[in-house]
């Protein structure tokens, strides 16, 4: 992580880097508040990929010609950037498609050779489907069990349940860092620490934290960590799995194919060193290069500043939104304990109707179960509407959102 002086974000300057905000949608300036789903991309990221495609497009690692070398350098340099970004070593950084693939990789490669019949895997009720299904599949295959830490009504994890589960014997824990619905920032460092004292390995789903706050794998101490490029200004189709060196070295491969091998014979093969052991076939070269540029962009702003900006927006939004009659906001109102994600419902309106109407006003928010159906069940709702912020969002946009919600309320007689 680069140290950048703490200072307010220059949003006007930032917005100029994002071509999507230079167009009007339905004749209105575009208000994008679905950043927890995916972020927008700045010109710098788009240009980095175009440069690759236009100037040194080639495959990597095995090309003996100049452009191939250049592509290899750029790809591996991106890995170094990502490693620094989370304070890891480059060989601990595996490029995958997205958070989902990262978690599946661990479930398949580590899970299938370490989880045995009767073992327990600990999750929470606030997990994204990507951090549930891989463990369900694994548990079914191995006849293992899943346990889930519940939440309080304010959206915070029940820590006594966590300790109870750990005390009763858990083999592995997979935990979201920041909930994509509640915004809850879980105390991952403390939890990893406690888990390790009890011999439990921990994967952190950092899909909603890595883009929005400083994330330091050494500080957290986790064994694995997963996140997606497309949620942090990077392109689609690229994500990251971090794993501790010793773990990765001892894991068998996941996907088999070119580049992940050392030697291949007809009926046996040996594996390449990490991280390449886990990168089979031609990777998303342009995607990795784009992600490197996204990391540069975020570093220039400074992740502490990103976090601070979002905290202020969230505080501002919570204050204003709480005054809307009939609104129901989920999760804690303490902005020290939540990220820039606000889920809510308005009276008995279906969240889809809400999102559709706001779309007509030029505002993009999300509505539905947010790939967290078990959490919806826990909250007793069919879904929620969700506004989520990033570096380019402003208080003015939140005012506009609140105004529109007031109008919706009238129309729908909430």
């Amino acid at each position: 992580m680069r140290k950048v002086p703490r200072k307010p974000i220059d949003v006007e300057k930032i917005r100029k880097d994002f071509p999507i905000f230079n167009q009007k949608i339905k004749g209105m300036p575009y208000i994008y508040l679905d950043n927890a789903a995916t972020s927008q991309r700045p010109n710098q990221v788009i240009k980095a990929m175009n440069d690759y495609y236009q100037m040194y497009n080639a495959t990597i690692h095995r090309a003996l010609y100049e452009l191939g070398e250049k592509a290899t350098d750029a790809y591996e340099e991106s890995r170094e950037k990502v490693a620094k970004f989370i304070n890891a070593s480059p060989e601990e950084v595996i490029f995958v498609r997205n958070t989902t693939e990262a978690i599946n990789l661990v479930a398949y490669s580590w899970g299938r050779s370490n989880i045995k019949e009767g073992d327990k895997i600990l999750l929470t009720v606030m997990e994204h489907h990507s951090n549930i299904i891989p463990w369900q599949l694994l548990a079914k295959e191995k006849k293992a069990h899943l346990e889930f830490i519940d939440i309080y009504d304010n959206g915070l994890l029940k820590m006594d349940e966590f300790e109870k589960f750990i005390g009763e014997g858990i083999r592995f824990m997979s935990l979201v860092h920041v909930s994509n619905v509640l915004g809850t920032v879980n105390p991952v460092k403390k939890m990893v620490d406690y888990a390790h004292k009890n011999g439990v390995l921990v994967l952190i789903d950092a899909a909603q934290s890595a883009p929005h706050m400083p994330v330091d794998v050494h500080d957290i101490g986790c064994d694995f960590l997963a996140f997606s490029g497309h949620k942090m200004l990077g392109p689609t189709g690229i994500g990251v799995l971090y794993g501790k060196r010793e773990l990765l070295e001892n894991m068998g491969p996941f996907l088999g194919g070119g580049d992940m091998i050392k030697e291949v014979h007809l009926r046996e093969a040996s594996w390449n060193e990490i991280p390449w052991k886990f990168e089979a076939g031609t990777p998303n070269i342009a995607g990795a290069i784009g992600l490197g540029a996204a990391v540069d962009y975020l570093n220039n702003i400074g992740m502490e500043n990103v976090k601070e900006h979002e905290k202020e927006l969230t505080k501002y939004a919570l204050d204003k939104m709480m005054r809307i009659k009939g609104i129901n906001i989920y999760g804690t109102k303490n902005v020290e304990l939540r990220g820039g994600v606000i889920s809510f419902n308005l009276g008995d309106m279906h969240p889809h109707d809400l999102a559709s109407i706001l779309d007509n006003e030029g505002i993009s928010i999300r509505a539905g179960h947010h790939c967290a159906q078990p959490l919806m069940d826990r909250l007793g709702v069919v879904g929620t509407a969700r506004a989520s912020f990033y570096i380019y969002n402003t208080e003015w946009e939140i005012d506009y959102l609140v105004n529109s919600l007031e109008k919706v309320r009238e129309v729908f007689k909430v």
Partner: protein
Amino acid sequence: MGNRLSSKLLGEGKGGIQGMSEIYTRMIIDLYRNPLNYGEIEKPDIKAKDTNPICGDIIEIQIKLNKDIIKDVKFNGKGCAISMASASLLTEMIKGKSIDESLKMDKNDILDALGIKMSLVRLKCALLPLRTLKMGIYSYLGKSDKV
């Protein structure tokens, strides 16, 4: 088909309300607040339930037949204004029709009745009741050996 009903129901409300949205006409909001034919039927001849996995909308349709004629129909479930309004209109439209006639209804009948244009995603909401109805009729015909 359907046109008749939609124009009757739409009345003055067609078009956007307060410029908020082209698809949330007064009719749709009214039907969301006060759905038609909402409820259950005792010992229905046809009963079918389906969900829209994108949004979790869930609709159940129950039908009482008199020979091949739909004597009574009710729906229940949970969903957005579009799917609820669509269910109200659909049940209204098929009442008194034969099941064969009902099977012939399609997307355009629903859209005409709703009187709005919509995106692909919302289309799924609008068509959920019709899909559920057809599912129910087909499985009834299957069971009763009439196909």
